[in-house]
């Protein structure tokens, strides 16, 4: 029997914000795929797919709400292990789509295990950190295990290659680690170490990845080639001006000047059609959901819930930040989706599962005494 207090404490605000964001996403997605001549024939299937993914995600979210999230503490290791196994399966038997191997196909449905890693890694880390959190912070002795746990899936995802998702996984892990505090000397050492790794890593980037970074720094250098995406996105956003061109009236979008307009550049579509007023409002909603996530972390009375909430919230935050900054020409083009807005099944499911966890932590805050 469900505890009556669970219903009383249900986080309607989070659910409301989520549904609001999801609605904006559906409208924007409609515009992105509807007006575009290229994918006109795909509207039906695209919608069906996204709707069914939303169904799966929502079911997962609701299911999660019914179980105490402490259950994740117990089974975290298994979930993590399952994700890593799936990543290995992808590497061995995944489907290649335009040069990268990211998808697993089950009976006609393709699925990206790397998206699940974005949930599994926070659970694994929250579980670990909650047992050894202290005011002085983590030392190297505490950190080598989580480092390995992150590096295994990170390496597998980079190999696919899916730089965007790998980056998000690393950012989630980094945020959580910084949140639980790293001992000062250790922090300095790690900072120096990661700078070194970044320097060495440059040499392992693929040519197109290096080019993206170079073009980002000076897009006008190649306006018809690699710089095209950044320039066209900036034109789309800028041409929205104060009030936008109106729903379904974005010319950059409608005439397919925007690349990947239903995934990576969905924000450009929104900004073009709704202008500064609309996009600022959208940023506020997004900010509210992130801030509310932090609030949930605050109100949770036990460390696993707090740290896990921080991890899930950081996932939402980093993806939104990187995706939007990219559309605004502030960051190089990396394939990161805008949670709840971009088209993409696996991403939608993992985001909804994350929201489910947040709802769960939020409604069970009374079960632990401060």
């Amino acid at each position, binding site marked *: 029997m469900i505890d009556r207090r669970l219903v009383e404490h249900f986080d309607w605000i989070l659910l409301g914000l989520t549904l609001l964001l999801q609605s904006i996403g559906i409208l924007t997605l409609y515009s992105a795929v509807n007006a575009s001549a290229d994918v006109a024939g795909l509207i039906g299937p695209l919608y069906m797919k996204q709707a069914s993914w939303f169904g799966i995600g929502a079911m997962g979210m609701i299911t999660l709400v019914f179980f105490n999230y402490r259950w994740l503490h117990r089974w975290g290791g298994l979930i993590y292990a399952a994700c890593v196994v799936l990543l290995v399966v992808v590497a061995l038997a995944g489907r290649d789509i335009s040069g990268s191997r990211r998808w697993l196909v089950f009976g006609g449905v393709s699925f990206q295990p790397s998206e699940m890693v974005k949930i599994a890694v926070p659970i694994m880390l929250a579980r670990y950190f909650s047992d050894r959190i202290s005011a002085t912070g983590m030392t190297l002795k505490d950190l080598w295990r989580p480092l390995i746990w992150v590096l295994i899936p990170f390496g597998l995802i980079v190999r696919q290659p899916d730089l965007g998702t790998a980056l998000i996984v690393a950012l989630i892990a980094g945020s959580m680690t910084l949140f*639980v505090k790293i001992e000062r000397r250790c922090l300095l050492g790690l900072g120096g170490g990661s700078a070194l790794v970044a320097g060495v890593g440059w040499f392992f980037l693929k040519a197109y990845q290096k080019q993206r970074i170079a073009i980002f720094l000076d897009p006008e250098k190649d306006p018809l*080639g690699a710089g095209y995406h950044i320039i066209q996105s900036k034109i789309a956003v800028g041409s929205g001006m104060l009030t936008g061109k109106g729903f379904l009236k974005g010319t*950059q979008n409608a*005439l*397919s000047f925007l690349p990947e307009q239903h995934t990576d550049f969905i924000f450009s579509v929104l900004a073009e059609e709704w202008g500064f007023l609309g996009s600022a409002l959208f*940023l506020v909603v997004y900010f509210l959901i992130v801030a509310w996530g932090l609030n949930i972390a605050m109100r949770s009375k036990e460390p696993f819930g707090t740290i896990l909430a921080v991890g899930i919230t950081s996932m939402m935050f980093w993806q939104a930040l990187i995706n939007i900054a990219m559309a605004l020409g502030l960051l190089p083009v990396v394939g990161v989706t805008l949670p709840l807005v971009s088209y993409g099944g696996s991403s939608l499911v993992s985001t909804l599962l994350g929201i489910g966890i947040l709802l769960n932590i939020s409604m069970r805050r009374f079960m632990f005494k401060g």
Partner: protein
Amino acid sequence: MSDTYLKTVDSDWYRQRLSGALIFVVAAFLVLLARLYYLQIVRGEDYRRQSQNNWVRLQSIPPPRGLIFDRNGTLLVDNRPSFSVSIVREDAKDARAVALRLADFLKEDEQSFLSKLDKAGGWPSFKPIVLKRDLSRNAVAVVESHKLDLPGIVISIEPMRHYIHGELASHLIGYLSEISEEQLKSGRYPDHKSGDFIGKFGVEKSYESFFHGRPGRRKVQVNAIGQIIRVLETMEAEPGKNVFLTLDAGLQRKTEALLAGKVGAAVALDPSNGHVLAMASRPAFDPNAFVEGMTFDAWNTLVSNAFHPMSNKAIQGQYPPGSTFKIVTAMAALEEGLVTRETRFYCPGYYRYGNRTYRCWSRHGHGSVDLVRAMAESCDVYFFQLGEKLGIDRLARYATACGLGQKTGVALANEALGLVPTSSWKFKKTGVPWQAGETLSVAIGQGFNLVTPLQMCCLIAAVGNGGILYRPVVVSRIEDGDGSLVKEIPAVARHVLPATKATLECIKQGLIDAVNQRRGTGWIVHLNDIKIAGKTGTAQVVSMEPDRNQEKNKERPLRLRDHAWFVAFAPAVSPKIAVTVLIEHGGHGASAAGPIAREMIRAFLKG
């Protein structure tokens, strides 16, 4: 569950950590907001304009070129719709790859596509570059069905020049070719753009400014791969003006048929105003080939042809006038009072001058002949003596006054001057003084004289019309599409022949007898129902031999055989048509050129 963590951290510690995170999040969102403000508010106008430029394209609508009609309103040249395929590099992104793919789809030469791309390298990237013109319907279907694989490829319908009758009057009408970079840069063609066709020869060239019209403009909305989504605004093109030739298409066709297989030219004029009724030059070319796009080999074959199909021999060909020049010699001698109509000379078949013997074409001689008979029978001995009495410079003055040695002023480019030799000309040219004997050759149209068939036709027309030398005209009027008159080209009299009525009557009688007397050199030309006045001419290609013999001429290699001339007008009284025929290496004027002139006259006067 272990609660040890409570000993190390408390809720204030969490609050502090979370506040730090919140500050970071707020800062990040503020950065995004500021960037949004910068792009949409500060730079918004600029980006709005750029987005307009992105999807609004200005297209030029080519104006249909003016049509060409003959004097009776028969359509000779029009425009037909044709499909062109072009590439817009801005939309293609990788233009070379797209061009190669297109070449593959169309089974066309890759190199020609790439070289067209390279040639247009300096153009703005939104300008379409024509890769191939006049696509077949199948090719259009192939391109359309691969549209998504061919970003930036556009098919446009353009009016293409169509010479309905192919070779008919090709030298007079002329042809088109793509405008050159130099012409574009010259600033003389403000309504042309690169890729446009421009008149390169003939009437097409002379009346280019009327033919071309003014291009229209169309504002269209395109998508990212350059497909037109809809038309926003159209300003129709102003079609070129229609040009009415003075040509009679029926006579022209007849003339060309008569010249078939020969090398030479024929001209027919209206003696009363200088209108060109026919102008043919053989061999000819098909002007359609130039707009359809000629291969390098086809062009080479055309220009390396020994008989020069590209040249209009009626105005560009320069030939010794042969006996047709006797008209000028007779005129000069009569006007200078050196002879009268009755003055007789005896022709034994040769004339001794100095230590040389100059032979008459008739070995047995003409006996005692007066001027009219000397003209009719083309007695060389008679004219040797006229030349001797006149001297070269006096003769040259008359030749010049007859319109020789200068352009007739016809509105066709590349007209040749011809040559009227004088003593000072020869000295300047060769450094050797004029030899009196050379005057004898000039007097019968051999030697240094050079004329074009059109010059001779103007002269014979002037003799026929009573002495007025008209500037030949090829276009009589120019009209708008709705038939309103834009320009009328009036008849212009250049000179009056330096001859009294009596002199002209005397020459005319000689020309009438030449055709209508059994002993006349042009007897073969006579008609029972039309009185033709005419003069034969046989122009030597090799320098004058003492022994001239028609039979021998036929045995010579073609390039050494004589050119055949016939000049005529008809009817002899108040003529309606003047004709000149020149057949290169045709042999005797009467037999090779005369019948052609006769048939032209018959066709024109009797239909």
